């Protein structure tokens, strides 16, 4: 096989033609998108309830006079948004332009994009970036959640919106910044955006009261807009924010439980068991749907989420686990599920984050005991890490920010990226549907592909003891132990280990 040599100008023409044809294809389809939307999608995965009924109704009524106006508007149900792929892709581009202008307004040189920078990024291809941990592990997933919800706000399904997220993420990486397209950003924005996006979308639909009118209705729509701005803005622009309808049936959970906790956290290290000063925190947990029962109807019809504010940083933990598939086994005694997970933890002792997929087996008995085990693959994980010979990261800003300009990260970056695997088990003992004792263990392996060359093995154990007091209120104590072992791939095969015990005491308020 012989290689073919090209002149750079010819390559440039090749790429321009490729790119042009792709955008042309998108625009032609967008122009025609309206034509295919009206036909009911009989091969679509089962979404049951009103979506299916709506499709059947649409099929039977198509072409007849006097059909409900929502069918003519290409809505899958009366309370659903009208379907438009073209509008979803257009709004994704608007989101990119919005973020670009915001960066420009902040004076970031990375926002000064031109066709030359677009071409340079296409010539270079994917690279790893050197941005801050929080920007990459929270900022990009949040941005991806906006792309995802341009799809959901325009009537697209979960998986269709996932493709829109990848489109928004890739176009941002190549055309939204002067930085070279970042592989870790693409993965975090796409997978994190899907997880956060569906979580926010469904949570916003919980807040929205679509049967209400007047001021109460307006505030419920504004509250939902704060959680899911893209859907909120679309609803206000279309006038859906004041229409009285039922909620889409697949966005009404079969079960809902949530708790809020506020208290103090004490964290120690291997050298110093616990520091005297506690750190205040607020933690919010929610279980949407019933992850232990029934066959799944749509992705994320059951999910769990946990957010912890304070306790070592502004947002010290974010965790979303959404069910993609669920199937009861052995007459419901066992439950098999496939989950998508998004994890973020950052405090003054350690920082980790990951995008992963897991297979779980759950067992529950008489609503008192629940056991869940899982194993899966981490597509991309991040863990704070120091090169050998360095015991402390330099003070922030030291050795950084040369003359490249605001917004340009020049490194060094003190965390590693890589794929890996994860596994874990959790057991819950409850009484009257209120958990009293929760045991949790998770192990995660990361093979570093970018950063310090090492294998990282992370373990986290957590025990929650919860005591109901009066009504929805209770008190709780949590013991947590985080252990990390790093196996450096140097000639001496150096090993390093750190562990961080922590204790939390808090008041809880639980609703279900």
């Amino acid at each position, binding site marked *: 096989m012989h290689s073919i040599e090209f002149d750079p100008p010819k390559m440039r023409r090749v790429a321009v033609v490729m790119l042009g044809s792709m955008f042309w294809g998108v625009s032609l389809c967008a122009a025609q998108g309206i034509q295919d939307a009206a036909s009911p999608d009989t091969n679509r995965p089962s979404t049951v309830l009103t979506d299916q009924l709506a499709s059947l109704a649409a099929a039977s009524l198509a072409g007849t006079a006097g059909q409900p106006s929502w069918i003519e508007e290409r809505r899958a149900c009366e309370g659903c948004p009208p379907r438009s792929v073209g509008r979803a892709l257009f709004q994704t581009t608007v989101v990119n332009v919005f973020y670009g202008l915001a960066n420009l307004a902040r004076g970031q040189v990375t926002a000064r994009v031109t066709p030359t920078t677009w071409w340079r990024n296409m010539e270079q291809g994917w690279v*790893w970036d050197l941005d801050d941990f929080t920007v990459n592990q929270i900022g990009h997933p949040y941005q991806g959640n906006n792309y995802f919800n341009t799809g959901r706000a325009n009537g697209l399904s979960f998986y269709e919106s996932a*493709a829109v997220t990848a489109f928004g993420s890739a176009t941002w990486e190549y055309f939204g910044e002067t930085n070279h397209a970042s592989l870790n950003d693409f993965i975090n924005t796409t997978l994190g955006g899907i997880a956060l996006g569906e979580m926010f979308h469904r949570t916003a639909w919980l807040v929205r009261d679509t049967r209400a009118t007047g001021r109460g209705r307006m505030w419920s729509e504004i509250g939902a807009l704060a959680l899911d701005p893209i859907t909120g803005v679309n609803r206000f622009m279309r006038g859906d924010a004041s229409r009285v309808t039922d909620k889409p049936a697949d966005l009404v959970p079969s079960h809902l439980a949530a708790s809020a906790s506020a208290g103090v956290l004490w964290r120690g290290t291997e050298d110093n068991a616990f520091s005297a000063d506690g750190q205040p925190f607020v933690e919010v947990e929610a279980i949407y749907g019933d992850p232990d029962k029934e066959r799944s109807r749509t992705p994320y019809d059951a999910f769990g989420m946990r957010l912890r504010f304070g306790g070592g940083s502004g947002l010290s933990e974010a965790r979303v686990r959404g069910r993609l598939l669920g199937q009861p086994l052995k007459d419901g005694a066992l439950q098999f599920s496939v989950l998508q997970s998004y994890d973020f933890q950052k405090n003054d002792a350690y920082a980790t984050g990951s995008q992963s997929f897991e297979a779980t087996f759950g067992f529950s008995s008489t609503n008192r005991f629940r056991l869940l085990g899982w194993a899966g693959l981490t597509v991309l994980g991040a863990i704070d890490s120091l090169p050998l010979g360095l015991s402390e990261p330099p003070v922030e800003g030291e050795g950084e920010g040369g003359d490249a300009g605001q917004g340009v990260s020049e490194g060094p970056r003190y965390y590693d990226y*890589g794929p890996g695997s994860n596994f874990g088990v959790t057991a819950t003992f409850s009484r009257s549907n209120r958990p009293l004792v929760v045991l949790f263990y998770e192990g995660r392996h990361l093979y570093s592909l970018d950063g310090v060359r090492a294998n990282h093995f992370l373990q986290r154990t957590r025990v929650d003891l919860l005591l109901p007091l009066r009504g929805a209120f209770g008190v709780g104590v949590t013991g947590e132990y985080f252990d990390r072992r790093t196996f450096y791939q140097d000639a001496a095969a150096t090993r390093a280990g750190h562990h961080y015990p922590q204790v939390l005491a808090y008041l809880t308020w639980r609703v279900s």
Partner: protein
Amino acid sequence: MSLSIRAWARGLCLLALAPTLAFAQAAPQAPPSEPAGGPSRMWFAVGGALATMRGDCQTCEEDFPYRHSGALLVNAGYRANHRMDVGAEVFWMPVETAEGTIRATHFDAVAQFRPWASQGFFLKGGAGMAFVRNWVDVLGSDSFNEKALSVVIGAGWVFRPTARLGLQLFAAQHALALGDLQTSQGQIPDVVGNRWSIGAAVVIR
């Protein structure tokens, strides 16, 4: 394989015209028809591509060359619905250079999605693993073998998207994150390879 610039240009003109051709075909295609003899949920595609590859390292000053060659693409999976196919992809690209051969094989889980059911335009994305056998800059005659994280994105146009036999034109980018690249002089850290390809594949359902 020896290809002239003229052949490339012809291929690219065809690719550039693809949306127009499909646009012209779109009207009679509007209600998606199932393959004769009942719908098949299988999705199989095999084709070839012209590809350009470049490896780069984050901390290297050196400007690494672009290398061009042919590539083979195979997709196998099933149709999740009439807009989406999911399955596995194998992308194999061998490159002969003056210094030796580099063979990269990507094994990815992919989803191929047509936003508009009546149109052929599709987006593709996926991730998996890549295996590289590298005879450039090695010690002795054996290759250095590497594993990598693989990510693929792409777009294209499929003709006759719901028929049993179809054709797709595609443009794709495969990335492989190697970590360290082993050479005779030692390891080069943080290497990412990129492969850009345009090609065509026969689709069987």
